[in-house]
């Protein structure tokens, strides 16, 4: 007999230990929502039934931890994540694989992620630094406690949001649900649970590091993009307008016209390599995000 919702969740967690961490987090959040709502509604209708008995009636309908775990595994197996789809180019020749990156939504997604990560990085950093310093300085007041609880809860929300961006753009499976805390807790207990939860702190580290990482990603992408565009545009602009590659005093240096295809090719190669680099960074970043933001 399962005695409490927490016990059910623990058993479900054990059942799902070999599954994807994000699937497990979704499953736990769903089970917690359902069991608590169902339990409350049953207790309201039949107050004479004991809490334990009511819970077991609810579980009987919801499914045992084993049954629930197997339902998630089954559906997960059939569901593709985010943007990801099979890329046929993977099986082709080396050139096909090299150019296949243009057909890979993960590469485009990763480039977009690297561009926006500077903005999200600034937002996360500002929020975390402001929140931390206000929580600390307001700690001497009673309402400082409320603020600290609000701030730690907001971190969970931000972690979920970042997870959605990571899954959407990088194709790494992340939680679709946030974990939430029990309702019947005092503000102080809530704060204590949040402060002792290592995921809250991991999320803080992740959000702080997101600023330097975001700036780095943005600079790398913008630099490589400009470089590749310059290579491709220089010979073209020179042929349309009288715009030399270089001018020192009276001397003007132009590219010889035979080199035009060469420069176009170099620009194209730089961009293609950038796409590969972006895809690789995206995958590495996705794994890193999963390590820091997903509850195990």
């Amino acid at each position, binding site marked *: 007999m399962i005695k409490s919702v927490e016990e059910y969740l623990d058993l479900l967690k054990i059942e799902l230990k070999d599954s994807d961490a994000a699937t497990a987090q*979704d*499953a736990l959040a*769903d*089970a*917690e*929502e*359902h069991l*608590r*709502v*169902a339990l*409350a*509604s049953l207790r309201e209708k039949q107050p004479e039934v004991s809490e334990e008995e009511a819970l077991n009636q609810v579980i009987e*309908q*919801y*499914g045992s931890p084993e*049954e*629930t775990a197997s*339902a*998630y595994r*089954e*559906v*997960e197996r*059939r*569901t*593709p*994540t985010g943007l990801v789809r099979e890329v046929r180019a993977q099986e082709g020749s080396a050139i096909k694989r090299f150019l296949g990156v243009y057909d890979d939504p993960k590469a485009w997604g990763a480039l977009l992620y690297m561009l926006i990560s500077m903005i999200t990085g600034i937002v996360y950093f500002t929020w975390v630094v402001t929140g931390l310093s206000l929580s600390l300085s307001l700690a001497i007041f009673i309402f400082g406690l409320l603020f600290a609880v609000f701030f730690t809860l907001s971190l969970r929300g931000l972690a979920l949001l970042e997870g959605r961006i990571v899954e959407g753009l990088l194709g790494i499976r992340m939680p*679709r*649900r*946030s974990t*939430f805390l*029990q*309702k019947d807790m005092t503000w102080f207990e809530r704060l204590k649970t949040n402060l002792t939860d290592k995921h809250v702190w991991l999320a803080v580290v992740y959000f702080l590091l997101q600023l330097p990482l975001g700036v780095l990603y943005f600079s790398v992408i913008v630099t490589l993009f400009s470089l590749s565009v310059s290579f491709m545009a220089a010979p073209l602009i020179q042929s349309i307008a009288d715009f030399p590659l270089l001018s020192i005093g009276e001397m003007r240096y132009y590219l010889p016209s035979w080199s035009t295809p060469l420069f176009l090719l170099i620009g194209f190669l730089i961009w293609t390599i950038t796409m590969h680099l972006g895809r690789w960074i995206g995958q590495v970043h996705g794994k890193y995000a999963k390590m820091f933001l997903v509850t195990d």
Partner: protein
Amino acid sequence: MVDSSVLTKKFQKEMNAGIASLVLLSVLDKSDEPMYGYQIAKLLEEYSGDASFMKQGALYPVLHSLENSGLLESKVEPSVSGPPRRYYEITAEGRETLVIWQGVWKQMKSFVDRAIKGG
């Protein structure tokens, strides 16, 4: 000899795999407002009467999968009496898909009925 109840359970599970998506889409299509998991489970309990076709816990992964395919949308809203609830709503794409699926189901149903009756 394999226990027939085990075989029946397996058969039921395999059938549920596709039907659950059709049922959930239909329920959300008929509903005027977004519904949360427990509400949907209760409604299905009413429809199924005494027979229980699937565990309520098995509905949620299907809801996620439908949402992931863009057929459903969801939003979390805090509730007065308990943890926040996730409300699901059918999308325009979901409605289009449902019409096609209902057609497939009708054909499938008449095919299976004929096969069982034998002509």
